[in-house]
């Protein structure tokens, strides 16, 4: 099952992607820091929403991003599959 990795509401803007901590194909675990977002003079980490495999990045370093925007997509193993 595919799951979107979305930028949460930060209450501040503009936001840009700083760096990804995983590459497509890598297994990531729920709660792992996945993407660093730069907002003004601070950075925030977006965590992995689930355990699975990162399959794509839709926003790369220096791309401006908005709350709710899909940053990447992961494949999550469904229970019993």
């Amino acid at each position: 099952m595919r799951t979107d990795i979305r930028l949460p509401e930060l209450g501040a803007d503009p936001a840009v992607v700083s760096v990804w901590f995983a590459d497509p194909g890598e297994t990531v675990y729920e709660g792992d820091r996945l993407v660093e977002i730069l907002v003004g003079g601070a950075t925030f980490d977006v965590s992995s929403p689930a355990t699975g495999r990162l399959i794509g990045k839709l926003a790369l370093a220096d791309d401006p991003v908005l709350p709710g925007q899909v940053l990447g997509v992961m494949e999550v193993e469904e229970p019993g599959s």
Partner: protein
Amino acid sequence: MLSLPLSEATDKPASRAPSRRLPPWLKRSLPHGNGNFFTQHLLRELRLETVCENARCPNRPECYARRTATFMILGNVCTRPCGFCSVPKGEPEGLQDDEPQRVAEAALRLGLRHVVITSVTRDDLPDGGADHFYHCILAVRARTGAVIEVLTPDFLGKTEAVDRVLEARPEVYNHNLETVPRLYKKVRGRADYQRSLDLLAHVKRRAPEAVTKSGLMLGLGETTEELLDVLADLRAVKCDNLTLGQYWGPTLKHTPVKRYVPPEEFDALARLARSLGFRQVASGPFVRSSYHAEEMVNVDAHGYPSA
């Protein structure tokens, strides 16, 4: 687990190197709760400006989530082109007579016990907006009874303007020096170091019961020696409280960051500042002049701020 070709998800390249990254100590936690939305919606409903938004403060998510904000009165267009600040510059609009009541309403609904009021610089107004400050202070106090901290411009050194603000008896009077004198031309443009020091000295003379406060941004290229000279100058005019924070360069058009100062250096500077006699010192990468401002004011047995 399903195995999908990566191209199904995106045609983006797998990665790209970031053009810049901040040091690890500038990492913040994601804001929690709905306070952020509450604060944002309230400010929009009441058509109020905050320095939090206009200066793109990195603490905004945290402060809004705690239902606090620093009100910026006298409009959102500044008459001075300071190199560090992202508040829009240009031709300001006329004053809004109902702004004091709207600020008071917001302070009441946010439940603030410590209200910080700042402004753009209004060199176009004969009194620099001092009378408007006066009315905002009175309105907020009447509705909330809160401790009031003002962060004013230098009013071009007009002491009668400062006196008008002091007539409203703000408990804390803040005026930021921002940086060391050598960097004034680049960073503060039309400001004057001595004029700012004189303002703080004047406040202490005219209203010794008021807590005086000033702040500097670090990382603009100042040396430690220059910084210590400024701290000594501030103590010489009996400035009570001090804030030291990291300058972050709002955009590429602004004065660039020369250095990111590590937290332990901020800590060492705080200890040093306290040894010079500052009563309260807030020093750290995310410290701004009004960040956690209420924690810098002690309240005596009568509920009156005692620095």
